[in-house]
């Protein structure tokens, strides 16, 4: 069962010190259940300590290690060598940073800039509806929660924003829209008008071309396009 693959990674690199972009090839012998994050660690330990890449939880809960492998935005911690070989039908992979913010170094992008679009939609309750009484929780029926709970599972990995046809221009991006849509549907938010204004603004959901690429690439299997369609229909 133990099978190893000879893998080639063509990594798009950038050095801010001399503002240089280049593609560097790494040859790696990798076991079948090594993940791409394991490969980068192996490169750091055995070949090249200077290759910069980001990760945190390494089990699909934080969205730090998102990048493009053979043009598909994905989480490197979830991509097993064996699955990558089968899915892309090759052992040669092009690895690029996500294109949703400027690159800081190699595969690491400026996440502050990427997050500016999330911050813009105010990912919190702007004006909280007070609970029925002091020391009480709100009562939210499971049916109501079910309407938007999937949208709350977003981890802001920005894979959808990278895959989206429109988000490279003025669109705030599918993940930002999800954050806004959640609070339109959340009964604890009083400030619905500002939410709707944001959704239906110049940078809002009408920039969406309904390609549904967001749903296709989402590592959390959130049907992002469904929520955007819901907003387009005015939450009817």
């Amino acid at each position, binding site marked *: 069962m*133990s099978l190893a693959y000879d893998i080639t990674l063509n990594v798009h690199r950038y050095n*801010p*010190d001399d503002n240089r972009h280049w593609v560097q090839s790494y040859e790696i012998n990798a*076991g*079948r*259940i*090594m993940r791409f994050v*394991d490969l980068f660690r192996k490169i*750091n*330990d*055995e070949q*090249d*300590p*200077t*290759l*910069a*890449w*980001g*990760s*945190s*939880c*390494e*089990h699909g*809960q*934080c*969205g*730090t290690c998102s990048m493009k492998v053979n043009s598909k935005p994905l989480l490197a911690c*979830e991509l*097993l060598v*064996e*699955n990558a070989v089968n899915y892309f039908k090759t052992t040669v992979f092009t690895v690029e940073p996500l294109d949703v913010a400027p690159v*800081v*170094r190699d595969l*690491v992008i400026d*996440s*502050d800039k990427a997050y500016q679009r999330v911050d813009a939609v*105010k*990912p*919190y*309750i702007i004006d*909280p509806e007070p*609970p029925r009484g002091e*020391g*009480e*929780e*709100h*009562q*939210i*029926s*499971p049916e109501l*929660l079910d309407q938007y*709970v999937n949208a*709350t*599972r977003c*981890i*802001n990995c920005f894979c959808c924003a990278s895959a989206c046809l429109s988000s490279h221009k003025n669109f705030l991006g599918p993940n930002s829209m999800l954050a806004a849509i959640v*609070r339109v549907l*959340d009964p*604890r*938010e009083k400030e619905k008008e500002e939410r709707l204004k944001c959704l239906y603004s110049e940078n809002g959901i009408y920039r969406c071309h309904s390609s549904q690429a967001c749903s296709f690439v989402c590592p959390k299997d959130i049907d992002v396009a469904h929520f955007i369609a819901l907003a387009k229909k005015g939450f009817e």
Partner: protein
Amino acid sequence: MGISIETSTTIDCDILIVGAGGAGLRCGAEVLERRPGTKIVALTKVSHPQKSHTSTAQGGLAAVDPKDPLDSVLFHAFDTWKGSDCTADQNVVKKVCESAWDQILWLENRGMHFSRERDGRLSKRTFGGHTRNFGESSAYRAVFEADRTGKGIMDTSWGESLKRGITFINQSIAVELLIEDKQCFGCVVFNQKSGEFITVNARATIISTGGSGQVYQVTTNCRQNTGDGLALVLESGLPVMDPEAVQFHPTGIVGPGILASETLRSVGGILRNNALEPFMSKYAPKMKELAPRDLVARAIESEIREGRGVLNPDHNIQHVWIDLRHLPDEVHQKQIPEVSSFFKRYVNLDPQKELCPVRPSNHYHMGGIPTNEFGEVEDKVQAVINGLFAVGECAASSFHGFNRLGTNSILELITMGKIAADRVIGCLSRQSETIVYPTTSTRFESRFKRYFESTGTENIGLIRNKLRQVMTRNVSVFRTEKSIAEAIDIIKELKLRSENSALSSTSLSLNQELIQRWELDNLMAVAMVICEAARARKESRGAHFRDDYPDRKDQYNYHTLVSMAHFGVFDLDRREIDRSLFDEGKEHHEKFDFIERKY
């Protein structure tokens, strides 16, 4: 080599939060809610606060609902005390358990998406070690947001912090604490992105840097959990408390270490060794796979140690199998779909057809920076360092003692974050408007110069891997005098080797190797104090198990304090365990005596 290691700017603020996870931001959000306009700067080592380790907590958040007629705060306090193997501090246990429901309401009222019952109220579930009536039956005490409770806490505390105007410096680390005459004045901070060193002067500094799981080869912790906060205080000459108390979850998935929940065993999963023998009946004839976490972890380690493990060639890690093949399809599909999907996703195995590799995985550090019940950091004689706080996993107040109950960690982090905020607000209002900040930072300069000036061909990554292997082999689930002594010798040797590793690049901006070099020193420092404290505690207590001293002993009824201002030079002290619930002598106080931890 002409690298300039000096601070380029100075920022003045009211509060500096070092580590923007759940604990740090709960504290910051509370301060801003009650004292708008407070200037707060929060650092995070990761690319954004949402990427913190808090986000990965799954199960739930223990809290006694005052509306529940069957449960009581005292029961929760008892479970926590018993679970801690009688080493938690009872003043802290009382405070955290009493305040728990308020913290749930804080989160709920601010938008956390808790799972709900039919009537719209918060759902609750049971969790190991949480009982009603002092162990009589299971308590429904854990509220949760599906299997992503930590994410809910993180999103809420980050959202509130953003709303109220905390200034974030993402991808930055605190490289030196500024302390003079038992007063903390802030930190020297290194901004990884810009490559700048910054002096951040603060009236209050909150250390909330999280755990130290990367000390071990297999861990459920994030890549960034390298014990930085512990190393930071050690370097300042301050002690760390109970570092030997490290929790291991019995079934981490090989190799990433991701948790394979207890559920797998409760639905009938069988642990098997390399000969496919079901081995649990040897260790726990009655309970078998359903024995408590620490017992199962020790059973698995025993099998591996005695040569009945299996080596995973890809990750070079020994493991045993969990067999789920015999379970009916319905169990796979309805009861364990999530964990099943983890095996599929991370090791490409179908648990319905194949054996799945598991082994004990480092999970949580009960030990940490010693604080009093208000989150204020103490030195080795229990004198408070003014203006310095520690909360969350990096701190030891001590709510968990030597063993933490499931669902108590995220409760502790938000509650202690809030409690520290109460104290910080008091401090800020007492302090005069102008503070003269001393300019005494020097240690970071020599440390970073040393990194850049180092020559030689040693490899930082390989030294780190070796350290993690040694700690997993010698000082994890099982410890002996010999295994610990051997680990200390090896770590000392690794430390010497690390001094002969030249960095490949002299750049300061996002130089990952430089950060890994800095982390390696932190990992080695934390590993050393874990070893020294484990060596000195010649008994077994909670998660600390000594083969050569398998029983708990009353003479060790205290907290370990270990200082290491210089590498390998230890200073051991003790702190009394607070027993206020016992001493008060109220009804049921006898439950808070040094009782046996038997389930």
